């Protein structure tokens, strides 16, 4: 079993969102079936949605455990980006992963990289001008949206 706890520099825990460039404090507690295992920790982003999934680790650490249980704290600076995103086809999500590959044990904690506390939400897709003309020609309605003042 692996437990992850994410906190801010001032000790605040539980908000789950961090600003670009902010210090992220990761506390890892583990209790494994055996001694001498290699633990891996990653702070990474992943894309989800319609496109082929991609991911990139901003920080990666690995260490050997002498005992089957223990605790360790890491401090890393959150990158500038990509910030968390909830798009129409693309979502970018941040995670902290800790795992023991040999034993198939993994723990994951989601976080939000943002300046506001919320992921950026993209507005509804705008109908391109050409398409709007075609739709108009065939009498279809293109309701105006906040993001598309042109329609």
């Amino acid at each position, binding site marked *: 079993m692996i437990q992850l706890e994410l906190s801010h*520099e001032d000790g605040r825990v539980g908000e789950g969102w961090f*600003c*670009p*460039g*902010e210090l992220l404090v990761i506390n890892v507690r583990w209790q494994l079936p055996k001694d001498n295992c290699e633990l891996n920790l990653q702070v990474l*982003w992943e*894309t989800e*949605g*319609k*496109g*082929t999934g*991609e991911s*990139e680790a*901003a*920080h990666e650490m690995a260490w050997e455990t002498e005992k089957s249980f223990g605790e360790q704290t890491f401090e890393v*600076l*959150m*990158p*500038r*980006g*990509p*910030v968390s*995103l909830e*798009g*129409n*086809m*693309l979502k*970018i999500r941040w995670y902290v992963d800790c795992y023991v590959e040999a034993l198939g044990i993994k723990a994951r904690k989601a976080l939000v990289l943002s*300046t*506001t506390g919320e992921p*950026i*939400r*993209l*507005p*509804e*897709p*705008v*109908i*391109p*001008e050409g398409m709007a003309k075609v739709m108009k020609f065939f009498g279809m309605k293109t309701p105006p949206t906040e*993001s*598309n*003042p*042109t329609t």
Partner: protein
Amino acid sequence: METGSTTTVTETTQIENVRRPNRWLIGCFPIAFGSIFTLAGLGVLVFAGLWPLSLWFQSLSWVEAPCKIDSASIETHSDSDGDTYSPKVTYTYVWKGDNYQGTRFAWDQTSYGSRPSIEKWMEPFPVGANTVCYVNPNDPKDAVLLRSFPKIVLFIIPFSLIFVAVGGGVAWGVPRLIQNQQARMQMAALGQNRAAMRAMASVSGTERIPRDSVALASRAPEQEGIPISASVPHETGEVNEPLIIEPKMGRWMNLVGILFVCCFWNGIVSVFLFSMFGNKNGPSIFESLFLTPFVLIGLGLMVAVVYTFLGLFNPKPVLVCSDRWLYAGSEFELSWMMKGNVSRIRKLTVYLEGTESVTYRQGTSTRTENKLFYSLPVAELTDSESIAQSYHVVKIPDDAMHTFNATSNKIYWQVRFAGEIPWWPDVADTFEINILPPLPYRKDA
């Protein structure tokens, strides 16, 4: 209103001052050089190509007359390149009872490097031989011994046309290339001339809210230890200066791309068409119906090639963005100059657009899907003066997603120029801009 006009004139003067470096001499050189080439080519084309061709054509209606060869020799012309030879003859002919003397052997007056070929040419006309020549009935003094087609023009005409084309291209194209380059440099200068740009902004009724430079400085990027992802643009240590933005895809690249697709598609379709029409019994109804959509797509592609080709001649925007580093919520100054005949553009709309793009596998094929999530008309212009050059302040939305450029997933921002030209392909140029992620958090900020 009157005050507004005065301000406009003042600003125009300011901008003109920025825009006119004294480089006319550089532009004159290719014009002079190209013009000499063109004139030389035209001279050869007319006097050694078209003129003999025209005389030969006229001589087809000349009348045959008996003549006697008085003298026949080969003339040698010596110069630094060696000897060349040409036929020299005199002959006497009778026209309506009067005697005339002619000296023109053939319409091809060129001298050749091979003496034996001239000898062979003159073989049928030894001295004292009685033969026929061709006389101009309107001017009996004008005659030719050999009325054959002057084959040399088949070489001279294309050769001289190459000279004309190359010379014309240099004289016409190079100054424009220089002018375009100058326009870019001048726009860069204009971009740095913030006073002129701000004044223009106030004339057009928009006022840029300057970024809080103190706040910006206090949040200056301190990237030591902060990881950088290759999929996200970052400041690269360069000064935040005006930036000339290149089109996302050049017009020529568009044409080459569509031409390639057109050739590829029609090449394959034509194989089936040839085999179908090569059949003795002709195409069957089933074959015809099956191939019709493919042929129609091929025809559509051909139309697209022509459309894209014509679009090459549209006015072309040169775009300057006042800031190299752009962030969500920031404002920047967008100025442009249209090169070409802008009076043809009926309406120009400039958009700031944000697009989501994802690539994924579907079966065996790879698909890319784009969705526009933000579209803001920055400017809608109908008067030629504003279309030719203008300046606008653009605000990036506060909650805008920054540029993201992973392999299969992208968020990109662009400035799109859409110009309506009646009865002609519209102006459609896009310029990609990079919106950077938020500046890093500082505890004391």
